[in-house]
């Protein structure tokens, strides 16, 4: 039986955006912690 390829691009967009948000967000969080940590060590 012939079948049509489903139109479900919105799920792809959601997954790709969420992955970028989590990974870039975690990297930014590490960078901010690093900035704070370096300034803390300078004070110490």
């Amino acid at each position: 039986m012939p079948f049509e390829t489903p139109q479900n691009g919105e799920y792809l967009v959601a997954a790709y955006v969420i992955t970028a948000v989590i990974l870039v967000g975690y990297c930014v969080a590490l960078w901010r912690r690093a900035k704070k940590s370096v300034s803390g060590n300078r004070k110490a």
Partner: protein
Amino acid sequence: MTAASDQAAGVVRRGLVLSAIGLLGLAGVYLLALGYTPVEARQGLAQKIFYLHVPAAWAALLSFSLVGIASALYLWLKDDRLDRFAAASAEVGVAFSAVMLTTGPIWAKPIWGTWWTWDARLTLTLFVFFLFIGYLGLRAAVHDPAERARFSAVVGILGMLLVPFIHLSVYLFRTLHPQPIVLKPSEPSLPPEMLTTLLVSTLVFTVLYLGFVTTRYGLALADEAREEARYAV
């Protein structure tokens, strides 16, 4: 600044550079997945979630396995570097698990017709995610460094023991989750464009893992250097 804090700053810097390279690689994976790989006829565009979901699962399970190995070695050798590495790897593993546990249901909905099913692989993956959140909570709650390292090493080893069950769960139990198509005894069953993109993505997620863990390890070193400097005054 002391020599120890200089060393920590160097490790953090190397980690951040590696993480930035990993994020650039991730942008490359997006381009490859969207522009180079064909659209799967039966699943449509949603199948391309595969290029993020599988490497995220790889990175998460790699992280948790290395937590267990480092923890076991810590209990044997009592080397603080192993405890520091285990803590870094656990935190990074939780971040990759978050990717795995969000992209999985988003892919499942259009293909299985449901966001979630309590089958063995999904349930075990969720448990291991909660277990390592507990691991991080335990580390935050115990203040004595030696006790914290010993208690969390035991939890880390128990978490690692779940990893082989997650991999083998699709063989051991009836499940909706597909069986492995690359890590299996026979040859990978994927067209070359899909296999290449998957392997590139896996490499990029491994680079991200190394970058994040190095940064997180350096931050722990910096915290310790600050504590030492405070007690030295």
